[in-house]
């Protein structure tokens, strides 16, 4: 770590890539709100899977439709 050659590499590195300090130039809250809205509108994959299973079940057992409607 403290070998002279390591220090030379570090020096070379600092001349190639300068330290960076940047301030945020705009408020990111509107983008955050947009992200939150997008995510809340997204239906989770397992909900889609359940819906697909239900549709399959109803296709193969149409007689179950009245039973399902009765229980809703």
């Amino acid at each position: 770590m403290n070998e002279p050659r390591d220090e030379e590499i570090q020096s070379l590195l600092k001349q190639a890539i300068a330290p960076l300090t940047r301030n945020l130039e705009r408020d990111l809250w509107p983008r955050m709100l947009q992200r939150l809205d997008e995510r809340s509108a997204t239906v989770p994959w397992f909900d889609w899977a359940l819906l697909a299973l239900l549709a399959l079940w109803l296709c193969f057992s149409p007689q179950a439709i009245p039973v399902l409607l009765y229980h809703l």
Partner: protein
Amino acid sequence: MLEPQTELFEEFAQGDLEAFEKLFRQFQGEIYGWIVRIVRDPGVAEDLTVETFWRIYRARARFDPSRNFGGWARRIATNAALDCLKSGHLKHARTEAFLLEDSASVSPPNPGVQRDLRERTARAFQQLPAKLRIAATLALIEEMPYKEIAEALDISAGAVKLRVFRALRLLRKSLKEMGVEP
């Protein structure tokens, strides 16, 4: 930065959007500043700041209001930046251009070091594995204390030193292959 009241943290942990907004506005600049140092691309840093706060919001129930919010947020930000570097989401050329533009904006301590040499060093640095690159960026370029880096990476200071050491070895090897002998 001063930590806000614990009450605000508690409200945030319970899912209060107003509390989250207050924390977002208070910490967005700090988190952005941290991320931009790692990814070195202002546009990507903005995206990652939003991604970080999205992860923070999802993990709100796991946050202990008695702990340091800034430190916790910084760890999440570091992980988001690490994921970005690993995924190769950063376009190589764009980042490289940014590095060079950045280098040109400050006068180098040794003007004798040629632009070509700086370019090759920056390219070799870009090829380092993401974990080593983050540790080396923060320790060698930004010259941040090992303790602070360790907290952000959620590892020990010894592990940070080891990553920096490995980064230097790999960098030396890459530079040697490029015909640069420091």
